[in-house]
């Protein structure tokens, strides 16, 4: 009889532990799921890469610098710089608001003979984001995302230029918690 009672007590004790294990597992799963799904989906790096790629395709469309941007007689053209966004099918403005654009694009041309001297510069968008690229903070989630690309482009028969593209996407609120 005593042994029977002891067994029953043991069973009850076991079921309490079992219940505690179930609760711990459930809480663990809920926490893990919330950590996974609670994180925002950050696409700014891909967006900045597409922006840089689009600028590169516009400047150097088919193995030769865009004739609207560069001609062998007059060199780099100012009107292309001024209308860069239109010419390259980009629209940075946010309709019906006074907000500054969440993008910045900068294209620098360096002569092959002297890579320290910038021959021509095109820049559009919100320049304030540029400071974020130089920020060395370890947590970059609250900073703009910067992507740099560079390639060599053939100017005319003899000249080659190093083209450096910097594209920046702000959109911090949309992509972070």
């Amino acid at each position, binding site marked *: 009889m005593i042994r029977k009672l002891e067994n029953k007590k043991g069973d009850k004790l076991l*079921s309490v532990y079992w219940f505690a294990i*179930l609760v711990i597992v*459930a809480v663990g*799963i*809920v926490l893990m*799921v919330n950590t996974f*799904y609670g994180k*925002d*989906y950050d*696409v700014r790096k*891909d*967006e900045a890469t*597409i*922006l840089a790629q*689009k600028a590169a395709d516009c400047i150097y469309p088919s193995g030769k610098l865009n004739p609207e941007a560069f001609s062998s007689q007059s060199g780099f053209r100012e009107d292309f710089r001024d209308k860069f*966004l*239109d010419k390259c*099918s*980009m*629209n*940075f*403005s*946010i*309709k*019906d608001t006074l907000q500054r654009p*969440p*993008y910045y694009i900068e294209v620098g041309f360096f002569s092959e003979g002297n890579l320290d001297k910038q021959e021509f510069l095109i820049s559009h968008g919100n320049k304030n984001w540029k400071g974020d690229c130089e920020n060395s903070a370890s947590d970059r989630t609250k900073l703009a995302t910067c992507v740099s690309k560079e390639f060599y482009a053939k100017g005319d028969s003899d000249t080659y230029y190093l083209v450096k593209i910097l594209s920046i996407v702000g*959109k911090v609120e*949309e992509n972070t918690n």
Partner: protein
Amino acid sequence: MFVRNKKGEILVENIVFILLNVIYLSILILFLLKQGSGAVLLEDSYSKNIALLIDSARPGMVMELNLQELKDVSDKNAISFSDVVKISGNYVTIKLSSKGGTSYHFFNNINATAYPDKTNPGIYVFTFKKT
């Protein structure tokens, strides 16, 4: 008589125990499924992905996207599938519930239109023209 009662007790206890475990596991699985298919999560991810697609598009392109996942949620929330994707003023908006939807800005200066394919349910057609 005593032995029979004892056996019956054990059986009932086991059945209750198994039932409680099954209920517990079902609740956990339902919770996981619901988390993955939430309207807010889908609106956020699809608006961003479609904005990236539009950014990469060139005039003359036609894209067909399988948005069956969105259709399932919009049907559940009584939102017409033709109202799920809207493109206006360089914003793509995904609406899966009556709360307004989620928008994301794209930079490509292109005339993009989106409409559901009438012959293929769950498919959306995106066309791109020069502005």
